Every structure is written in structure tokens, then in C-alpha cells.
């Protein structure tokens, strides 16, 4: 039996399968890497929720953008609301060349604003249209998702699920230190 090449062939097949599944333990099937990373961020053109200011992605050139997709009906978005707000305040205080932008998807202005008020979001918030154009352009398939865009408009990282303070700090530090960032 030990000398039989057929036996070792079978064992090799078994070993391959076990190795494959062991690898499977290290990956999360729900986390899909975005093809937009290291590609230019799709443009958007939105009006501030609650009226007024118009914002295009191009206007944010030179700054690191923390683009967060959320919704009032999304439970996990509650967890990250204060983290994003705190980051926004921190950037203002320390003069970091970074902006937090929040785009609500599949939502209504009234519900979105109520959520924003309840969780104290004061940074720039806008609403994706009913067709979901911006979300589709960004390959959105759930909320919350956060994109980190550098000063030249290239997406450098996509966070699926609620964002943490650690991730924001890491990404913003890395991207703001890159050439092209202006204060």
C-alpha cells in the first residue's frame, strides 16, 4: 500500500482538497474586493441634504475624501455614525486636508435628515437619486460602505461594513501624506 502510486495520488487529491478548504477558513465569502480600487473614482454631482450647496467630486481635488454610503434604514450605519462625525470634527480642528461626505441610498429626504439629526451628523450629507445612479456607479451592494479617495481622485481603499476610527486614521494619514494633497 505504501508503495502504490495510486494510493499516493489519492492522498494528494485529498490533501489538495483539505488545503483548499483550510484556505477557505481564512477568507470571508461575503467580502468582495472592489475592482474600483486604484482606479479613478466615478464622478458625482449632488446637492446638500436640507438645501443649498452643490458638490461635485472634482471640487474635492487635493483633499482626501472619506466617501460613506449609508441609509436611515440600515442598522449597522448607526454604529459608525458617531465615528464619522468625530473624524469630521477632528479634520476641521487639526486642519487635515480631508473631507467626510455621506451619501444616503434608497432613502427619502425626511427619513435621512431625521437619522442625521438623531445621530448628530453635521458633515456634508446628500441623497442618491431613486435610480441609485451613484451607488451603482460605485458598485454598491450593501450599506454601509466607505470609499477612501486620495487627492488625485483615485480610490485607494473600500471598507465594507461599519468603518472604525482606526481604519479612518490609517487611510487618511496614508493618503494625505501622498503627493497632491494640499492643506
Amino acid at each position: 500500500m505504501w508503495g502504490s502510486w495510486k494510493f499516493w495520488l489519492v492522498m494528494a487529491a485529498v490533501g489538495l482538497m483539505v488545503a483548499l478548504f483550510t484556505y477557505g477558513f481564512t477568507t470571508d465569502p461575503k467580502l468582495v474586493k472592489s475592482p474600483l480600487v486604484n482606479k479613478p473614482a466615478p464622478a458625482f454631482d449632488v446637492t446638500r441634504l436640507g438645501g443649498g450647496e452643490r458638490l461635485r467630486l472634482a471640487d474635492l481635488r487635493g483633499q482626501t475624501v472619506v466617501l460613506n454610503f449609508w441609509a436611515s434604514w440600515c442598522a449597522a450605519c448607526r454604529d459608525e455614525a458617531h465615528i464619522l462625525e468625530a473624524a469630521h470634527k477632528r479634520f476641521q480642528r487639526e486642519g487635515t486636508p480631508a473631507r467626510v461626505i455621506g451619501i444616503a441610498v434608497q432613502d427619502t429626504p425626511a427619513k435621512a435628515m431625521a437619522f442625521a439629526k438623531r445621530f448628530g451628523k453635521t458633515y456634508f450629507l446628500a441623497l442618491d437619486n431613486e435610480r441609485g445612479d451613484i451607488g451603482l456607479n460605485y458598485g454598491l451592494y450593501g450599506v454601509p460602505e466607505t470609499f477612501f479617495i486620495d487627492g488625485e481622485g483615485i480610490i485607494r481603499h473600500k471598507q465594507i461594513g461599519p468603518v472604525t476610527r482606526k481604519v479612518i486614521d490609517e487611510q487618511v494619514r496614508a493618503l494625505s501624506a501622498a503627493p497632491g494633497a494640499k492643506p
Partner: protein
Amino acid sequence: MTSTLRKSWPALAAAALGAALLLTASLAPAMSEEEVERRLLALADELRCPTCQAISVKDSEASFSVQIKEKVRRMILEGQSDEEIKAYFVSRYGEWILRAPKKEGLGLVLWILPGLAVLVAGGWIVYTVQFSRKRRDAETAAADEPAPLSEEEQERIARDLKRFEDDDLA
């Protein structure tokens, strides 16, 4: 004709011509609604619902799927080809959005491996069956050394055969 009409007939003629042109343009190779529906359903069946497990955008009523379906419809009406529409979604979501991988590179391995395996295994079975038969034929041929039969033996054989035939299979 009244003087008003005489003055305004060029404008009327232009308007009529414009209307005729518009009508012709709308009748020209635009897709019928059936064609649009057909392409929409076919494309929607090739894209997976990103928030569901095993079903297509076509079969799903999830909000993201509905939005994708509407986007596909708009892209069809804009005149984009099936390949362009699929390429758009792959560029935003990744190859993961397609329900079956493209038939190139690693995807090609997936598509041809099963058929190949069946053919190879089938070929091996045929080979072993024929090979074992050839081997047995060769063995029996080698073992065959028929000596000529004597008259008595021939007669006995004939008698036995006749008895066998008469006996039937009862």
C-alpha cells in the same frame, strides 16, 4: 386662400416636414418593446443579485436588483450592446457579478474540465474493456490447440447437439 394662410404656409410646411421626419425617425430601426424586454431578461439572468445567495437579478425583488434591472433597461435603450452592459457592471462590481465566469483564463478551465474529465474517463473505460478482451482473446487463442476430431468423436458431438436442440429450454 386668405392672406394669413399665404404668409404662414412656409412655417406650416416646415412644421409638417419636421413632424414627418420625427415620425420616420421613431419608426426607424428602434427596438420594439418586446426586444427590449427580451434583452433585459436575458442580461438580468446573467447578473447575480448582489445581496442574495444563488439567484439572478432577474429573479430577485431586492432593492439593489431592481435598481440594476432599471439601469440595464436604460442602457439597452441608449443603444449599448450586451457586452458593453456586462462590462460596465464587471468594472464596478468585479467579475463576481456575473453568474458564470467568462470563458477565458481560469474560467475556461472550469468550463472545459468536466467534459474533458468525462471524455478521458470514458476513453479509459473503452480502452480497458477492449484491452481486457484482446488479452483474453490472445490467451484463449494461445491455449487453443485443436487436434482433429476422430469419426467417433464427431458422431458423438452430432448426437449430443441434436439432443440439446430437441430438449428445448424447459
